[in-house]
């Protein structure tokens, strides 16, 4: 064993040396990666036959093409892995934690690389299933330009467990032709205007609904809380979380959101218990599809929502976006700074190959081309400050919203448990309220539960 290991190291470092010599001129990143790789190759075999990558979301043609291009680059930049087949598995967002856990506990089909939502990374890093990438990052040329806040989100006790891949924000989608026909001249900047415009549109276009109050999409609902000056939960200097759902400002946001269904009647009961894509784990049948089919006049989503719109959607040339309004305007509500990271599973026997593929996927050129494909923002400061989407009408609202991002407490260690794992605290609260439960007791119960779960991981 010891001998075989040693020869593997020798082979790898020989390959690395060869690459360093021949690859100098081609690109800086590949040579630095090769040296970075050889340092960690002691624990890995030289060239795995397959490398499994879990990507989140639906497998759409543009994404598949992009991924194939990246794999080709990976094979040329890292000839030692030229025969390594890269297997991409598409995991619906709603199933991700369950699929990770099932893979780990069964020991079968464990990915080498996985994409994670940036809110997942702290939880998964703390649970110890991700490999530390700290030393790899130190020797990677791309690392220095990564947005610092995004890297911090992936760092726990000084070790970085994932690399930011893209950032994304949500905004309200609408159709310029419908706004014109309904006589709405400017996009709403307050809650009252939003509800009034939704009602106007609904009256002008019978059979449609104005604005869906989806319950299981806290990433979007958070903007209403923040837009009223409230918080979901705050962390004290001692690290203890205090839930703020019963704060009057937060309560105002909850009341408004529920009233979209109960009072303004611009959201049908169908969206209660659904995510913006439909039932949990499904990728169709929800507000996203309904907006595409013209059954909804507005809805909240990121620009990536375009990819899952049905084929027979309304003319996307008329689709535009505005930032989620705050309670009293005129400034937009802060928006959840979402995004995805790339990480290597600790159990993967192919640490070196996995990291090398991540370098290709996430280098400035590829991450920018990927981001533009889906309406994301690349994780590189220089790319963002140069303006990723100049003159793009649809992206204007998102670009504006991106200036006002917030992540906490959606990146708290136990947030995934509280919001889409063992507990669906805020979704279930909204659902109960829309179904007519008494306001004070429901919100108070959710508040206690949220504080307990954020602090201890269970409701106590």
């Amino acid at each position: 064993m010891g001998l075989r290991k040693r020869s593997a190291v020798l082979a790898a470092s020989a390959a690395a040396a060869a690459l360093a010599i021949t690859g100098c001129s081609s690109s800086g990143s590949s040579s630095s990666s090769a040296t970075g790789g050889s340092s960690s190759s002691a624990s890995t075999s030289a060239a795995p036959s397959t490398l499994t990558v879990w990507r989140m979301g639906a497998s759409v043609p543009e994404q598949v093409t992009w991924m194939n291009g990246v794999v080709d680059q990976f094979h040329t930049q890292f000839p030692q892995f030229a025969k390594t087949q890269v297997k991409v598995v598409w995991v619906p967002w709603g199933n991700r934690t369950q699929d990770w856990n099932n893979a780990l506990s069964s020991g079968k089909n464990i990915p080498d690389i996985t994409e994670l939502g940036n809110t997942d990374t702290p939880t998964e890093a703390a649970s110890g299933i991700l490999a530390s990438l700290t030393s790899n990052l130190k020797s990677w040329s791309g690392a220095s330009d990564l947005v610092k806040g995004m890297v911090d989100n992936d760092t726990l006790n000084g070790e970085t467990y994932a690399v930011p891949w893209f950032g994304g924000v949500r905004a309200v989608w609408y159709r310029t032709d419908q706004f014109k026909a309904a006589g709405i001249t400017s996009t709403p900047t307050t809650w009252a205007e939003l509800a009034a415009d939704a009602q106007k549109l609904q009256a002008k276009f019978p059979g449609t609904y104005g604005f869906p109050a989806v319950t299981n999409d806290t990433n979007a609902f958070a903007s209403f809380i923040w837009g009223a000056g409230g918080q979901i939960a705050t962390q004290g200097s001692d690290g203890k979380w205090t839930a703020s759902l019963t704060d009057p400002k937060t309560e105002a946001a909850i009341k408004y959101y529920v009233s979209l269904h109960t009072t303004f009647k611009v959201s049908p009961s169908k969206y209660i218990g659904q995510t913006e894509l439909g039932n949990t784990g499904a990728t169709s049948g929800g507000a996203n599809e309904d907006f595409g089919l013209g059954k909804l006049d507005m809805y909240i989503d990121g620009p990536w929502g375009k990819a899952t719109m049905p084929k027979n959607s309304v003319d996307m040339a008329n689709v535009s976006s505005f930032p989620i309004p705050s309670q009293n305007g005129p400034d937009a509500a802060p928006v959840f700074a979402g995004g995805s990271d790339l990480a290597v599973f600790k159990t993967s026997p192919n640490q070196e190959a996995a990291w090398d593929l991540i370098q290709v996927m996430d280098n400035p050129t590829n991450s920018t081309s990927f981001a533009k494909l889906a309406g994301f923002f690349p994780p590189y400061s220089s790319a963002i400050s140069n303006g990723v989407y100049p003159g793009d009408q649809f992206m204007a609202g998102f670009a504006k919203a991106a200036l006002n991002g917030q992540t906490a407490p959606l990146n708290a260690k136990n947030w995934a448990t509280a919001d889409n794992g063992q507990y669906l605290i805020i979704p279930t609260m909204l659902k109960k309220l829309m179904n007519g439960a008494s306001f004070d007791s429901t919100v108070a119960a959710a508040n206690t539960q949220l504080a307990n779960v954020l602090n201890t991981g269970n409701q106590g």
Partner: protein
Amino acid sequence: MVKTESRRPGNSSPAGAVTGRTRGRRPPSSGPRPTGLTARQRAAIWVRRHHLAPYLLLIPATAVIAWLILWPAAQIGLFSFQNYGLMQIIGAQPTQWIGLGNYSQILHDPEFWLSLRITVLFSLVVVPLTLTVGTLVGLLLARLGRKMATFVSTSALLAWGTPAVSASVIFAWLTDPDGGIVDWSLSKLPSWLGGGPHWAEFSWQNSALPAYTVLTVLLVWMGFPFIAVTVLAGLRTIPAELHEAARIDGAGPWRSFWTVTFPLLRPVFMVLLMLSIIWDFGVFTQAFVITAAPGNRDEFNLGLYEYFKAFTQPPAYGMASAIAFILTLILLIITVGYVRASVKQGEVR
């Protein structure tokens, strides 16, 4: 059941039957011969002397059951007293014995009590409904002519044979708020029939009552054929003279059912009742699809509650094992109650 009874006087015990068969296979030269026996023959004598044959014959089946059911059940029992989760499986943290910790946490979880309530109420509705519909269809089948009976029972068994997921998805589509035929029909019905435009786009999955109404229809639809066919089989064993005598004495169908059919088929009904309770208490697949789990945690029954405790972030296999144990315990209590009642009535022999 009734058939077994009629055969009983001439029937020998299973052990007797087996030894009889073994004797038959032996060479005709009888009488104990201490010498000249092969090892095989000696073993056969030893087995016979100690009456071991029935147990030996039970070994293959017991081994399969032990491997597939008893061993997992024992493990579940073990996990239910441990903090067994993902970290323990992948070896990141040691497995710790936590006594009744899981049980006390479950009993203090409002979600457990909600799901228990839903499970019990649901079973209270579905079990009698399935039994009633199934029995009625069984009685109908007994009266129908041969061709018609074949047609009806085949159609019914198709419902029974439909895979649970397919059936659930079909029902979810029927009740879909967007163009589902149920909402459409209800919205076209006149208001004095309970219809009206408020049914258009009515969502059946986002609160417990509508979701379990759909589930009730689905489970009765899937469950009644088995009851009907079993009841029919039972009816065929009742001698025709009994019903004839009842008719001559002036008993109508109602009276005849309760004084002749039901008492004779009571053991059949008891078994069907038990099976229905077990099935409806533990229904998972259909509930998963119809309630659009896991997005609707306030609509869980015990099966869903257990499943999502085990498999959502962070996985709590120990806790889920404890729930499984509680579920088993509840069903065990019901079963024991049934067996006791049966013994008292002298039905179990």
